[in-house]
């Protein structure tokens, strides 16, 4: 059964539509990440689930119960804020207990839950401190603890790691993944960091311009992007895009690139014409001898285990290719590039994607 279900929800701020007719099912225990560029409506959608923003149209079901008109506190979800929003005048213990006291829980039960959360998050020793006496990472944990004690149906996170430094962010990310496995709770997590999305998510929801572009596992989203936007947004370094003229015969197609080179592939596109050809850097190999096309290396980035070769093709378009760590390529060299034709994508003018087999 779906734990959280959004059915055709919409929202606008005044005349500006921010969420347009979104539907989404989140399973019990699933870790779902909302990924998208700034302003795509990720936070708004999360806050609509939390109840901090109203839902103009559509339905929201949490645990089977219609929730769109219920007060935030009654929805049985907990939220972790980007800046943590820990009450500065309360100890860690009181911060965690606050929500439980508000519903009139017995002090004895509160104590037990706080102690549990302290143990799960390994912060028993911090319970009597104030937030100002904690490091950023510890505050982050308290914020999560404040959510855990409520034993909610779902946890909502809005960019919870963005205030941490790089090293701590990686560590906390791993801890979050472990926490999710341990308590097996439903989690919805907003981020614009694709590494967080790829590593944490069971499923990624890619948002762009108030709409869902694609829902899928990290690998699906990476390997079979549903649109030009997703293809360009996911992956670093990003996918190469080349203008091409495509001629179709049955399940076979031949793309003619701007520099005149031809690439044949087996793909199911309805008709020939102008398409954007997309290929990830790891599917473009630097080869000795004949390749699909040739380019001039402009920048060579050796990353140790692999080398990124930035090349310029005959028509001036650029392609990033991947070579192994011991690459001999130097800037200014002319290199042959071979495309792995099973990893090609074509995008029509509306951005719709077709994938080669």
């Amino acid at each position, binding site marked *: 059964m779906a734990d959280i279900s959004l059915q055709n929800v919409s929202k606008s701020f005044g005349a500006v539509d921010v969420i347009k007719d979104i539907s989404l099912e989140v399973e019990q225990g699933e870790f779902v990440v909302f990924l998208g560029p700034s302003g795509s409506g990720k936070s708004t959608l999360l806050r609509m689930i*939390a*109840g*901090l923003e109203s839902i103009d149209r559509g339905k929201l079901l949490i645990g089977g119960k219609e929730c769109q008109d219920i*007060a*935030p*506190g*009654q929805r049985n*979800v*907990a*939220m972790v*804020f*980007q*800046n943590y*929003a820990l*009450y*500065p*005048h*309360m100890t860690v213990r009181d911060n965690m207990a*606050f*929500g439980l006291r*508000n*519903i009139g829980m017995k002090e004895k039960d509160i104590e037990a839950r706080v102690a549990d959360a302290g143990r799960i998050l390994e912060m028993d020793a911090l319970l009597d401190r104030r937030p100002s006496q904690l490091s950023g990472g510890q505050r982050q944990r308290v914020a999560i603890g*404040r959510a855990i004690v409520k034993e909610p149906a779902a946890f909502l996170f809005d960019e919870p790691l963005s205030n941490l430094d790089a090293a701590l962010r990686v560590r906390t990310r791993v801890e979050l993944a472990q926490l999710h496995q341990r308590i097996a709770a439903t989690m919805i997590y907003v981020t614009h960091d694709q590494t967080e999305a790829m590593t944490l998510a069971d499923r990624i929801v890619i948002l762009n311009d108030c709409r869902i572009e694609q829902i899928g596992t990290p690998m699906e989203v990476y390997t079979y992007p549903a649109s030009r936007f997703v293809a360009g947004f996911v992956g670093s370094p990003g996918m190469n895009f080349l203008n091409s003229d495509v001629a179709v015969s049955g399940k076979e197609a031949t793309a003619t690139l701007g520099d005149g080179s031809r690439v044949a592939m087996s793909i199911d596109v309805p008709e020939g014409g102008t398409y954007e050809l997309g290929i990830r850097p790891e599917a473009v190999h630097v080869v000795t001898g004949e390749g699909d096309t040739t380019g001039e290396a402009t920048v060579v980035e050796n990353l140790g285990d692999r080398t990124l070769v930035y090349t310029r093709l005959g028509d001036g378009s650029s392609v990033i290719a991947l070579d192994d760590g011991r690459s001999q390529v130097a800037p200014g060299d002319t290199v042959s590039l071979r495309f792995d034709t099973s990893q090609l994508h074509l995008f029509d003018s509306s951005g719709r994607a077709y994938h080669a087999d």
Partner: protein
Amino acid sequence: MNLARTRRVNIAGAIITVITVIAAIIWAFPIYWGIVSSFKLEDEVVRPYIELWPEHPTLRHYWFALTQTQIGSWYVNSVATALGVTVLTVSTSLLVGYAISQLRFPGRRVLWWLILASFMVPTQVLIINHFVLIANMGLLNTWAGIILPQLIHPVVIIVYKQFFDQVPKEFREAAVMDNASELRILSKVYIPMNWGVTTALSIVTFIWAWNAFLWPFLAVTRTEMMTITVGITQVSDAFGVYYARQLASAVLAGFPVALAYLLFQRRVTQAITLSAGIKG
């Protein structure tokens, strides 16, 4: 180079220090003069030349003020009314400031403009209406009569609103997610996060109320119901003006406020800056 520079800074510093000291002397001298005079004999006070120290220091004026007047009752009246004004003003302003800052209700804007507008009306303008009103209610010569018209302090509301506005909205949202009622959000989150403002505003309101003269002067005719600011004007009545005696009672009247200033110096300065920023 370095030396020259330090020296220049020192000269500038010295000039500023001298100016400050002169200003402080000009400012403080009348107070010094008043206090010193209260220890002089009546005929020493009216001598036509300046004596910086009493020739025959005496406590008799203080003794007179403490024994021959109703200064005890005046103190009690002042403390009671000033406390009443403080508690009521601060607590109501806090609620209004919170409502305007945090709640969304129809008429919020209008209410806010009304408060800002009432801030432009000096209370003296309303004093006749207040008098008639309080008289009709039969509250002249009572604490309630002294207190009620003094509860109008829009500036306290304005300061509260501004401080509540500055609390990041995530705190409110976190509390809402935590199932907190509006009253609990106010009492457990917003008030504790703004204790400094409440203390500062309380001190300043208390000092305002303690120093109030015009309204208590009108509202009270019976000597035993007077506040101390009004009471000290009575010391002179019987046999013309006794400067030293009056000054002694004035010193007694100002004493608690001076003490409050000393004890809460930093808070008072803070509070005055707060309200001055708004008046500015």
